[in-house]
């Protein structure tokens, strides 16, 4: 049967990993390629690079990071952050990315998702949704620009629309939970999982292994994205998978 995926996410800025530099000590401040290799050896199911480089003139740096990673790591690689047009996607795929995730550009112009899916296929068109709970209500709103700008768009309606436009997967981040280490927003994740037929990746808030278990079992996520619990070596990916396996979740060991 299809196994549940564990996906470490690396925030990359100017070609360096900006989260989780502690464990690499002085030898290296955080080379994304080296960290990707480490996660590869630990048995990660995919890798995600989130390019948070601010200036557009540094876009070539992430291309180079992707190229070097793809030479050494033979597993699926998703790249997100700052993707604005079809040419951005083409260059990342040519460099060795397998999927690209589109966030703000999809909100600005939803047809972009359709164009990307028609040109490159749904399988490499991930739509990233940053969601925030509307206070006092049982619904969530889509945010852009790293969770700063509200859009007024309902998350569930947006996810369904993006599926219709050809997105092959949803990367769903709870802005309320992100950084809290209190666990995923299970209610949000379950609502999106039930609303669409494409896979949903849960993101934002994981602090321990039980949170991964809940993301898969209670929320029904196809994959769980995590950053800090792996970066700071609180757990290895292998430990996470052993834990999930012991609790009856199908994972690739």
């Amino acid at each position: 049967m299809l196994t549940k995926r564990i996906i470490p996410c690396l925030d990359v800025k100017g070609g360096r990993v900006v989260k989780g530099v502690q464990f690499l000590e002085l030898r290296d401040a955080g080379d994304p390629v080296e960290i990707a290799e480490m996660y590869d050896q630990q048995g990660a199911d995919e890798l995600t690079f989130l390019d948070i480089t601010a200036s557009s003139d540094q876009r070539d740096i992430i291309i180079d990071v992707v190229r070097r990673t793809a030479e050494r790591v033979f597993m699926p690689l998703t790249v997100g952050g700052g993707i604005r047009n079809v040419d951005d996607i083409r260059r990342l795929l040519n460099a060795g990315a397998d999927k690209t995730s589109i966030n703000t550009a999809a909100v600005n112009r939803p047809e972009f998702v359709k164009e990307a899916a028609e040109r490159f296929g749904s399988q490499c068109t991930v739509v990233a949704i940053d969601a925030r709970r509307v206070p006092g209500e049982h619904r969530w709103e889509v945010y852009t620009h790293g969770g700063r700008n509200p859009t007024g768009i309902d998350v569930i309606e947006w996810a369904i629309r993006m599926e219709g436009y050809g997105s092959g997967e949803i990367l769903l981040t709870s802005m309320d939970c992100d950084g809290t280490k209190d666990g995923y927003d299970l209610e949000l994740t379950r609502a999106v999982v039930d609303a669409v037929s494409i896979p949903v990746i849960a993101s934002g808030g994981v602090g321990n292994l039980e949170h991964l278990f809940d993301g898969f079992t209670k929320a029904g996520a196809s994959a769980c994205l995590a950053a800090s619990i792996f970066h700071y070596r609180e757990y290895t990916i292998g430990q996470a998978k052993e834990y999930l396996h012991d609790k009856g979740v199908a994972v690739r060991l």
Partner: protein
Amino acid sequence: MIAIIDYGMGNLRSVQKGFEKVGAEAVVTADPNKILEADRIVLPGVGAFRDCMSNLEQAGFVEPILKVIAEGRPFLGICVGMQLLFTDSVEFGKYNGLNLIPGHVLRFPDKMTVAGEKLKVPQMGWNQLHFQHRPPVLESIEEGSNVYFVHSYYVIPDDKSVIATTTGYGVEFCSSVWKDNIIATQFHPEKSQGVGLRILKNFAELK
């Protein structure tokens, strides 16, 4: 020399890098004449069946592909590159393929549930291989090995004896075929870490 057919569809670099990693020389080529010079050929593919097929035709690859296969050179189809070898596909209408392996390409059924959860389409992630036959290219791959899939459609060969492995996703589908010098995988060996690299190595070393 291994030629990887570049017809404007998909990430060919990782296939090439996979072969290089296992010590085999591979070139990515958009020149149909180049594949006639290769001793083994790879047809990758992502995206829609009809787009892949029409690009293959427009780039002039159909004749050379039929020729090298008829000559018995080892040929590897990956993902949509596997589906293209079949008679037809129902993706976005009905479209004809190369018909080298009689059979059809169908979509995973909608609204199926497995263990209480809705079956997601595309199937995306790692799933297991169950052997029906063991072609040389899958030599030393263990029963139940996990490989990486991304697809919404799967093949049904008319002749079941060409099925090398099956994989379960709502249905038990054909995840690789072997017919004479043709081997084709629905999964991505170039994305399947050690197991996938072993398959690429086996292909590069086929006699």
